[in-house]
């Protein structure tokens, strides 16, 4: 790939588990992870809990530090990002994130428009009128209006908050937008609205998506390429359509066979021994 927006090379993240302050165990949440996301692309990361996908997202936006490996966003090295606010401010323009839980991703005491304005103030020097115009523009882009802007987060529904969270993330005009299970906690009829919004925004802006989800249907809907992760490692990668139409790895096949659909019946998937093995590791 000529000019990837995100490039992850041999990434590894190890968490040290302390039990009673003494016994230690090392757990690799992410291991030997390598992939590229092309500019303007929509890239899916498929994984269940414990797959390491959330850790990956948190490393990219700077909430966690990698143990080994390289993360480049638009050529900028993640290692430049330290604890200083100026470094974090510069990195913020590269990658932004929309969180899973729309109910706690806003300061409960701050009006929605104010929290978007606060971000604008930090990153751009706009006049007050330009600023409120930009806020209105951003809200409009995600299908909200002034009334929503004036509301406190608790005055908005889950779907409206998730729209506002997208607007806030787009305010900085990041190169990469990371969506961590961004529709998982929404009602079905709202989920489809947000998914449609995301495909519209892709047409309107130049932002690239990194979409993390356990939901194969959602991955199919928004992404072009994807990786399937299990216990911190990639088990399958390629074009989304290819992975889902012709899955190669048993785990991908298992995931696909577990999606409820017409004429689907639940079945016992893994032996309890396997389940126990997973349990010991977590």
């Amino acid at each position, binding site marked *: 790939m000529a000019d990837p927006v995100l490039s992850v090379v041999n990434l590894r993240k190890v968490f040290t588990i302390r039990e009673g302050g003494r016994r230690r165990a090392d757990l690799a949440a992410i291991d030997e992870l390598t992939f590229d996301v092309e500019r303007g692309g929509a890239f899916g990361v498929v994984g269940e809990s414990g797959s390491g996908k959330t850790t990956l997202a948190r490393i990219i936006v700077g909430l966690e530090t990698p143990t080994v490996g390289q993360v480049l966003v638009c050529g900028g090295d993640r290692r430049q990002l330290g604890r200083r606010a100026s470094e974090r401010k510069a990195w913020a323009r590269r990658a932004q994130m929309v*969180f899973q839980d729309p109910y*706690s991703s806003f300061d409960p005491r701050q009006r929605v428009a104010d929290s978007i304005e606060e971000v604008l103030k*930090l990153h751009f020097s706009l006049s007050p009128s330009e600023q409120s115009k930009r806020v209105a523009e951003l809200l409009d882009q995600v299908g909200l209006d002034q009334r929503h802007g004036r509301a406190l987060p608790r005055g908005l529904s889950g779907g409206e908050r998730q729209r506002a969270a997208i607007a806030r993330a787009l305010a900085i005009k990041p190169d990469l937008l990371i969506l961590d299970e961004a529709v998982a906690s929404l009602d079905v009829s709202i989920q489809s609205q947000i998914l449609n919004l995301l495909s519209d925004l892709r047409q309107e802006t130049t932002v690239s998506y990194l979409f993390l989800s356990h939901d194969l249907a959602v991955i199919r809907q928004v992404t072009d390429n994807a990786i399937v992760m299990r216990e911190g490692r990639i088990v399958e990668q390629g074009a989304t359509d290819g992975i889902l139409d012709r899955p190669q790895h048993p785990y991908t096949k298992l995931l696909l066979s577990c999606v409820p659909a017409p004429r689907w019946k639940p079945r016992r998937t893994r032996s309890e021994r396997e389940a126990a093995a997973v349990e010991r590791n977590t």
Partner: protein
Amino acid sequence: MNSRPAVLRSPVGVRLHLPSRIGAAQIPTIFCLIVLGAIAFLVVFGPLVAPQDPNAVNLSVSLQGPSGAHPFGTDIAGRDLFSRIIVGARTSVLGPLVIAVTATAVGTLVGVVAAWKRGWIDSILSRTMDVMFAIPGLLLAFMAVAVFGRGITAPVIALAIANIPWVGRVVRSAALRERTLPYIAAYTTQGFSSFRICLRHLLPNIMPTVLAQGTLAFTYGLVDLLALNFLGLGVQPPTADWGVLVSEGQDSILRGAPEETLFASLFIVITVVAATVLSQRIGGDEAPAAPPA
């Protein structure tokens, strides 16, 4: 099927229309605020509103019961108890107030810094607070008096220090809980400085906890200072102070005149109860929980 429509009567309060649930629930809070407001008024304007000179000795009216001229009666020296209690509010309340404000400010700073930085800074701050927990506040105050002599300044400083870990520990755990929420992570990824996130977003959201602990520190300070004054180690007679009044009134009880101890104690109890109830109220009155998804 066409059976009679059964109406279930729930055991209590069916179709009970309260004027407003919020208003009804806040009556105790409002009541406490009124009580504390009245005491604050006495602190500021006590000497101006006291009907008589609190230190005017008149042995001819010693140990009188409540009357029109002396609503709470008189003490052994014939001083008007009503005026002494009103004027005494200032020394009785200002000390605890200084203790509460200092302990809350320092405790909140320590708690938020420990929770935000984690790691070795948290370890040092938390262990230091653990050590301070082991020393009773009163003991520290006694030592301060022993070193610096009688008076109110030394015990106030000692008790302020002793109350820091009580605020710090609770604020730390509240801040720890708050900082795991995605909105804090969102501000971090947007490039805001830690100082700004803590000051503008984290602190306002844990303010109910901070205020509750502050109010609690006030009551602890009040009770501890009164104990010191009762023992004669703090405020010195003839200055009117509730603790001093309780102490002085002991002899009068044996002479059949319990008014001095009784009324001073009453004011202490009212203040402590009002402050305690208020602290519980604001502690529990956090931002409403998110509606279920």
